């Protein structure tokens, strides 16, 4: 059972935590908890969703531990080198920026995105997996998307300026 699920759980944990080492710890905790409690699961069809819930919970736990240990956020990475023409460069920069923006979202919002988009779960199911009301899931997703849109707009306004400065 663990072998069947471990790849997906590890991917989910890595996306939520943004750190492979902590993702390993979270997946290990989740699978051991699943092993301990599997006989009590009421509905075998809910096995996958239950594993996802345990993994998300383990991610929260490890994220909290990490916050206690490290108080300094990782700084923004330098802008990548820009290959090719200006149009392509902006697209690459935008994408890179979006990726980094996802990484800086609060873990609650990132978790909703991972479950909703990556695991392709409707928000009602995502809420169940995240153990939160559906309204809260919608609200977290909304805030996350708003943050990303705002971040992208800022980047779009700043990018041509940077390109002009580099090509000047």
């Amino acid at each position, binding site marked *: 059972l663990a072998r069947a699920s471990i790849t997906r759980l590890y991917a989910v944990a890595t996306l939520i935590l943004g750190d492979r080492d902590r993702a*390993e710890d979270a997946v290990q905790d989740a699978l051991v908890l699943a092993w*301990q409690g599997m*006989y009590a699961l009421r509905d075998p069809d809910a096995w996958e969703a239950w594993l996802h819930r345990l993994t998300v919970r383990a991610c929260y736990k490890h994220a909290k531990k990490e916050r206690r240990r490290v108080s300094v956020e990782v700084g923004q990475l330098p802008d990548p080198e820009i290959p090719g023409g200006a149009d392509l460069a902006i697209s690459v920069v935008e994408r890179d920026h979006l990726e980094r923006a996802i990484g800086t979202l609060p873990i609650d919002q990132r978790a909703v*995105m991972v479950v909703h988009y990556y695991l392709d779960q409707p928000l009602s199911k995502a809420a169940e997996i995240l153990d939160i009301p559906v309204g809260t899931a919608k609200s977290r997703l909304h805030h996350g998307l708003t943050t990303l849109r705002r971040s992208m707009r800022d980047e779009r306004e700043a990018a041509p300026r940077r390109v002009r400065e580099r090509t000047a």
Partner: protein
Amino acid sequence: MNTDHDLEREILSILTETAPVRPPEHLLPSVISSARRKRRWPRWYALVKEPTMHSDSHLTVGSPTARIAAVMATTLLLALLVAGAGIAGSRLLAADGIIVVDQSGAGTVETIAEAVAMAKDGDTIRVMPGTYPEPIAIDKDVTIEGDPGSERDAIVVSFTPEHPTATTLWSEDLPSAFRLLDATAIVRHLHVTGPDHGIAINVSGGDVLVEDVSGDLEGGYMGKGRYIVFVQDAAAATVEDVTCDCSIATTEGSTLDVERFTQSSGDVILNINGSVGDVRDSVISSLLIQEGADASVTGSTIKNEVLVDPGAVVELRDNLIDGVDNDGAYGIRVDGGATTLRGNIIRGQFIGLDIGSGTSPIAEGNTFEDNTTAINVIDGAAAVPEVLANITGNTFCGNATNISPAGDLAGNEICDADLGTAP
């Protein structure tokens, strides 16, 4: 990126590309090692420990009411266990509907037979990797499946001549790995190995699906004596995605539905006295359709021959009957019955279609190519006109002889006249 939809698509793309393709190799062993060091929670503890569930949730293990009930039930259960409930007790402790069989001791039980004994109708018996050398008799409506996360061939069920036997069409008493007795059951995702002569899955009555199973069986002549699936006693069997150098056989009154069966040698036998057999999208060595059978074969490749016995009703449609590996023998031999051939390619045979005495198959839209003799009529020249009345719209190309004895193939397309004389 102008719309919300674009943004969402881009997020999904980034998540998909950023996600690691596989976990580090040490992670799974590390999980297993950690699990072995921990005790599994008893049910009552899991019920109390899990957080409160939502009213419509199925992910946690109980609402407050359910928890109280579960704790009381568990107490009673423990009392029963203490009183020596034995296997029944351990059954109640198992996960609802799933019994895990694992030789390492990490599952519910360590043998398939134990799992079958404790299973109830509707349960799934999930077999973890390992070799299970045990006779398995199933008279319940259960699913036996290899662990979906493991390679099929890593889950091996083996049997020996000492296993219980069943009598086949040819009065052989053969041992079997699985005996399904009037069960509505599924056998899925595993590999069966057996001795010289034997039956991997013996279906006796009931309705069975055999899916994603491979076999490593030995012995027999042309597949007789080694069967991946043997269907008898008015059973219904569906066989899908099965690979084996061996046979599938049905007996009187049974129904067989085969899809994507890959067979390197031996016979697929759709048989006998009233059996219904449908074969689709398969790679078959030989096909023997016997008296009383009602069979169709579609979209398949047949590497040796198709033999239709008197009294069988057969439709062959859109198949490739290829003599490349056939060493110059027959493509289709029709010894009687009612045979219809449509859209098939019959090529490279010594005789493409051999028409037996007193029979006249319908052949429409087929291609006969590169055969020594495309069509041979056993009853001789006098029978040729009657036979040809049913042979229309076919294409004859590159055959040494298109029809023997010679006849008028009007209504068919002839690429070239006879290239030579039939031996």
